[in-house]
C-alpha cells in the first residue's frame, strides 16, 4: 500500500463526507428550527436529481439542470411544508415519522409515474470532467474536487446566513424560543416555509451533484437518508458545525473502513474468509461508531440545544 493511495483514500473519505454534509445540512437545519424529523428529506434529494437530469437532457446544459434542481426541490419543499408539514410541528416525533414515511411512498411512486421505471441519464459537465494530478503522483477526478469545494462554500454560506443576516437571526431565535419570535412580530409561518424550502433546496442540490456520479433512479434517496441521519445524530441535531464534522467523520470512517478492514482481516483469517468478513464489519462500522459516540455523549458531539 503506497502513501499516494492512502492520501487518495483520505481524500475520498473527505469527499464522501462533504457529499453527506450537503444532505445533512438541510436535515439538521429543519430539525433545529422546527423540531421536525423529516424522513422525506431523501425524496427531496431524489426530486433534485430527477429535475437536473430531465432539464439537462432537454437543454443539454448541466448548469441549467443544477438551477432546476434547486428550484424544483425548493418548490416541492415549500409545497409539502404548506400542505402537510405545517400541521406536524405541534405533534410528537411519532406522528412526524409516520407522516414523512408516507411522503416517501408518495414521492417515490409519484416520481416513477412521471419519469417511468428506468434510471435516467445525468453526466458531469464537460468543464469538470477529467482528473488532476495530485502531489505524490495519483490522479483525482476534478468533479469530486469540485464537490468538496461546493461543500465548503455551502458550509461557509450557511454560517454567514445564520450568524450575519436577518433571516439567520430569526432562525436562531426560532431555535431557542418559538413563542418569542412570534411575539416579536415575525411571521413564523412564512419563516418556517422559507427554512423548509431552504433545507429542501440543499437536498436537491446534493441530489443533482451526486446524481451525476450515481444512478438517477427511484429510491436513490433512501440509503443516503439513513447516512444523513447518522451524521446529524453524531454531530448533534440542529448544529450545522456538528453536521459538518459528523459528515466528515462518517465519510472517513466508512471509506477507510472499507479499504483497510478487509486487509486487516485477511492478515488474520486468510484471504477466503478475511475479505468477506472484513467487508461485513466495514458495512456495520459507521453504526458502531454512532452507537459508541451516543453511549458517551447522548446528545451528539455538538448539540445545539444542549
Amino acid at each position, binding site marked *: 500500500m503506497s502513501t499516494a493511495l492512502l492520501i487518495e483514500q483520505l481524500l475520498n473519505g473527505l469527499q464522501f463526507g462533504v457529499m453527506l454534509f450537503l444532505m445533512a445540512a438541510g436535515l439538521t437545519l429543519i*430539525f433545529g428550527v422546527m423540531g421536525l*424529523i423529516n*424522513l422525506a428529506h431523501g425524496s427531496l434529494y431524489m426530486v433534485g436529481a430527477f429535475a437536473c437530469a430531465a432539464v439537462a437532457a432537454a437543454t443539454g446544459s448541466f448548469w441549467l439542470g443544477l438551477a432546476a434542481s434547486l428550484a424544483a426541490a425548493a418548490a416541492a419543499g415549500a409545497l409539502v411544508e404548506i400542505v*402537510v408539514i405545517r*400541521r*406536524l410541528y405541534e*405533534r*410528537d*416525533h*411519532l*406522528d412526524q*415519522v*409516520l*407522516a414523512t*414515511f*408516507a*411522503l*416517501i*411512498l*408518495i414521492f*417515490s*411512486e*409519484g416520481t*416513477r*409515474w412521471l419519469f417511468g421505471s428506468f434510471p435516467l441519464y445525468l453526466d458531469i459537465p464537460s468543464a469538470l470532467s477529467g482528473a488532476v494530478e495530485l502531489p505524490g503522483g495519483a490522479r483525482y477526478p476534478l468533479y469530486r474536487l469540485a464537490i468538496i469545494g461546493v461543500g465548503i462554500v455551502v458550509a461557509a454560506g450557511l454560517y454567514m446566513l445564520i450568524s450575519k443576516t436577518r433571516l439567520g437571526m430569526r432562525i436562531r431565535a426560532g431555535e431557542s424560543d418559538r413563542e418569542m419570535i412570534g411575539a416579536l412580530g415575525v411571521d413564523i409561518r412564512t419563516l418556517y416555509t422559507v427554512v423548509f424550502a431552504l433545507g429542501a433546496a440543499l437536498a436537491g442540490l446534493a441530489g443533482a451533484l451526486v446524481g451525476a456520479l450515481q444512478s438517477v433512479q427511484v429510491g436513490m434517496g433512501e440509503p443516503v437518508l*439513513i447516512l444523513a*441521519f*447518522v451524521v446529524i*445524530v453524531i454531530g448533534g*441535531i440542529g448544529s450545522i458545525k456538528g453536521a459538518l464534522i459528523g459528515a466528515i467523520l462518517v465519510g472517513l470512517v466508512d471509506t477507510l473502513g472499507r479499504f483497510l478492514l478487509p486487509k486487516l482481516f485477511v492478515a488474520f483469517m486468510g484471504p477466503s474468509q478475511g475479505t*468477506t468478513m472484513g*467487508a*461485513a464489519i466495514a*458495512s*456495520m462500522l459507521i*453504526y*458502531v461508531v*454512532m*452507537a459508541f459516540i*451516543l*453511549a458517551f455523549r*447522548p*446528545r*451528539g458531539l455538538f448539540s445545539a440545544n444542549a
Partner: protein
Amino acid sequence: MRDGVGMTRETAIGLFLVAVLLAFPLVASAMGEPFYITLATRMAVLALAAVGLNVALGLGGLVSFGHAAFFGIGGYVAGILASHAFNQEPIFSTPFAFMGSDRMPVVWLFAMLVSALVALPIGAISLRTSGVYFIMITLAFAQMIYYFAMSWPAYGGEDGLSILSRNTFPGLNTANPLSLFAVCYGLLLVALLVFAVLRDSRFGAALLASRQNATRLAAVGIAPFPVRLAAFVISAAITGLAGALYADLNRFVSPSMLSWQMSGELIVLVILGGTGRLFGPVAGAMLFVMIEFVLGGITERWQFFLGLILLGVVLFARGGLVGVLAGKVRHG
C-alpha cells in the same frame, strides 16, 4: 386519563375487532377460500409484533425505530433451529450437543429469550439518550444487525433461509392454515392480556410516570432507567415471538425482516390503530394488511395510494382507527 364510559366503548370496539379477526378465517374456511385464512394469520402475527412495540412505544413513550431487529431475530431463531433440526446438525456441541428444534414452544422460548438478550445491551445504551437520538440509535443497532445478516453466509445471507417443513405444535397439524391461525391468534390474545396487565400494574404506572416526568418519579424513589429498560426488553421479546411466527407463516426468513422499512411498518401498525391503546395494534394490523392486499390487487401504483391513506390518518385521524371509532382523542 380514563373515564368509565369511554373505556367501555373503546373496549367494546376492541373486543369487536378481535371477534372479527376470529370470524374472518372461519367464514373463509367455510367458503373454501383458504387464502383468507393466511391473510388473517398475517394480521394476527403482525398485530402481535405491534403489541410488542406498543409496550415500548405506547406505554413507555420510547419511539423505537429498530424493532425490526427483534422481529428479524425471532424469525432467524425459528429458521435456524428448524434447519438444524431438519438436517440433524448440532448448532453447538459443547458443553452438550444442541440439535435445534422443530417444536414451536421451544422455538418461541428461544425467540423470546434471544430477542430479550439482544435488547438488553441495545436498550441499556439507547436509553441513555432520548427523543430523536433514541429513534436514531435504535435504528443504528437494527442496521448493524441487518448488514450482519446480509453478509453472513452460514444462514443464506440476503437469499434468506427456507423452513422446509413448518415447526410443529403438540396436538395440531400446523400445515393446516386454520390450525396455524389458531396458534397465532391464541398467542395474540395472551399478549393482549399481558399488555393489559402490564398497563394496569404498578410497573405500568411507573412507566407512564417515567415518560411524563422522570424527575418526579426519581423523587418518589423509583429509578426510571430500570423501568424503561424492562419495558424495552419485554417489548422486544414479544416482537421476537411474533417474528418466529412470521417466519413459520412464510416458511422463510430473510434480512428484509430486519430492514429499516420493516421497523417503519411496525410503527405504522401501532399508529394506524391508535398508539398506546390496548387494541390499537390489532386494528392497525387488520387495516394495514387489508389496505395492502386490496390496493395491491387494484393498481401497481398501490404504494402511492398507501402513502396518501397513511398521511390522511396522521393528519385527520389522531388516535388511530380505535381513536376515531371510540370518538375520543387520547394523544399517545
